[in-house]
């Protein structure tokens, strides 16, 4: 890098990732389109607030999936982790509510978030152990975990929804700071900043990029690959658990089968955001943009009542394939490398 730009400061466009640029372009086109067709119903404060309270659910999960993908793995268990956490925390909240007419103790909500994050961390460590120590391919290990956790959730709840939560929880998480910024967005932003900091300002980030690029080189450079993998999946578990807690507030109940589509969506936004499925590449800015873009697309389409909302899955799949084909034609060589390295 240094030699390439020797004596010349890199311009704005060469510093911005091409994925980010493309996402910005698509977003701009979509916003112009919405402005021309449904300006009055799309460009309202309440619409943007709604979107900002909806995307953190799967946005949080995507952050973890992204980290795992950077190490060259994948996490298919975020929804399982999220639902189990949400169910357990819903039960805790119900326990904490005084029987007669009292309100939730003040410490309850921070406690639930801490406890939820701890549960997520434990489940994430379990994933990490399976991947690093037992050496199960990540896709199978996390898939098995996801099935197992869903099963545990079903057994705990008997398949029914846990509802009747104290109103304070949903009210707090659904409230808007200064009547403007939804709390969900704040949680997402905090996590995104933490992940950005980890990736770009700590040695942990540099290490996982190296691990994803070439695990053998990472080992010979003296990195403790196993420990890195475990911490990565642990962070993924934490973000998934936070996603579950946001989901708990948005639905005001918890159930073993909520958010089933999010697994696909997480992988979709992470790949759209420019993270290479073989690892070693990807930026948080791209992923965050992809998350926001998907939400805007979905909300935008919902403004056209004559279009069935089922078309959204068609559009998502189509966009994903299109992006990969565009990549192929604009940068074909890279895929030859993918093919060599990627088992599937």
């Amino acid at each position, binding site marked *: 890098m240094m030699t390439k730009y020797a004596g010349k400061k890199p311009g704005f466009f060469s510093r911005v990732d091409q994925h980010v640029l493309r996402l910005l372009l698509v977003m701009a086109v979509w916003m112009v389109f919405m402005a021309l067709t449904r300006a009055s119903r799309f460009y309202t404060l309440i619409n943007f607030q709604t979107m900002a309270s909806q995307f953190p659910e799967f946005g949080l999960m995507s952050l973890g999936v992204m980290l795992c993908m950077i190490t060259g793995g994948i996490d298919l268990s975020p929804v399982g982790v999220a639902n189990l956490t949400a169910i357990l925390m819903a039960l805790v909240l119900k326990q904490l509510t005084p029987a007669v007419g009292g309100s939730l103790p003040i410490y309850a909500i921070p406690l639930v978030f801490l406890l939820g994050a701890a549960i997520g961390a434990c489940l994430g460590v379990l994933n990490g152990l399976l991947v690093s120590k037992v050496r199960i391919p990540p896709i199978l290990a996390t898939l098995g975990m996801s099935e197992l956790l869903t099963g545990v959730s079903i057994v705990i709840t008997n398949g029914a929804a846990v509802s009747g939560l104290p109103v304070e929880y949903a009210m707090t998480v659904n409230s808007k700071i200064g009547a403007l910024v939804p709390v969900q967005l704040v949680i997402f932003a905090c996590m995104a900043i933490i992940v950005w900091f980890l990736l770009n300002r700590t040695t942990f980030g540099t290490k996982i990029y190296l691990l994803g690029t070439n695990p053998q080189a990472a080992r010979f450079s003296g990195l403790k690959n196993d420990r890195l993998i475990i911490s990565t999946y642990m962070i993924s578990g934490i973000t998934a658990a936070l996603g579950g807690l946001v989901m708990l507030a948005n639905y005001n109940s918890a159930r073993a089968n909520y958010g089933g589509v999010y697994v696909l969506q997480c992988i979709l936004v992470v790949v759209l955001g420019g993270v290479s499925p073989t690892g070693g590449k990807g930026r948080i800015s791209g992923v965050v943009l992809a998350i926001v873009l998907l939400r805007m697309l979905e909300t935008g389409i919902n403004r056209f009542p004559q279009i069935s909302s089922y078309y959204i*899955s068609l559009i998502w799949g189509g966009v994903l394939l299109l992006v990969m084909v565009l990549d192929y034609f604009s940068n074909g060589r890279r895929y030859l490398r993918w093919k060599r390295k990627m088992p599937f």
Partner: protein
Amino acid sequence: MGRRLKQLTKRNETYVSLVVLALCLLIEVRSGQFFTANNLVDIASAMVVPGLFAVGTFMVIVSGGIDVSFPALASLTSYATTKMLLDAGYTGGVWLPILISMAMGALLGAFNGIFIGLLGLPAMIVTLGSSSVFKGVMQGALGSVQLAVIPPGMRAFGTSSLFTATNPVSGLTSRMPVGFLALVAILLLSFFIMRYTFFGRGIYAIGGNEASAHRAGFNTKRTKFLLYVFVGMVASLAGLIRTCMMQQNHPTNMLGMEMNIIAGVVLGGTAISGGAGSLTGCMLGTLLIVIVENSMILIGIPTIWKSVFVGALIIIGTGVSAYQVVRANRVRSTRRLTGESKA
């Protein structure tokens, strides 16, 4: 004899069949209902659709790819076929529906094949995308709803049976569906393809090392493309048979099956990284999953525990074989003092 026994202990199929056998015996001891004629026929009949899916998944995984789009593909083709024939008032036999749906399956398989085979994009991401597209086409463009009636020819095919097994004690009867013959036929066909044709050997070669296969003279692009076409056809056949056997078409109830099928195939010893695996193992692994899903009730475990067991089975099953690889590598690497080999 001793050498053959030693060879057997090295094969994954041996262990899977032992686990299946142990599970069967456990269920038999607990319930006394496992080795009854009707239960065995029930399991065989429950094997038909997962078995067909597993054959396709097996071939894809051997080629070093992975396919998560087959349930969406099967749902789309079986729905479109049923709906089309219902609207046309079709009253003929089952061959036309099978032909139509397999033709559509080939087309959709080719869709996957273009991206994965010809362009060489990663199979996991492509099939995630295409399964989303197939679902969107089915639910959005076709506006799918549950079809409670299916054409008479398909219904006749679904209800006809090869023979009927009766449980002498309880008097319960089970039919062996004609669809089972389709599973047998596809199994024989894919066994022949994988073992005796250039195409089948090419699939193994590509899964082992795509670059080497290419250098050795295999047309890797064409092989992969044709593979996904074939798998699309098998999956759509399974979808149609399922519709016939259920006597109705529920567009979404196949979705989500992909993970259990993949788990079964991998449990049967197919290497997830490609290049190795046998049809016998793949069928045994699928049988294991089917037995767990169907027979838990016989030993008094409520159905809500199903996911727990399937999940644990995936983790333990893949964990044991993965750990064996780790240990083998460790022995080898301490001997040679070289680095790790990535599983």
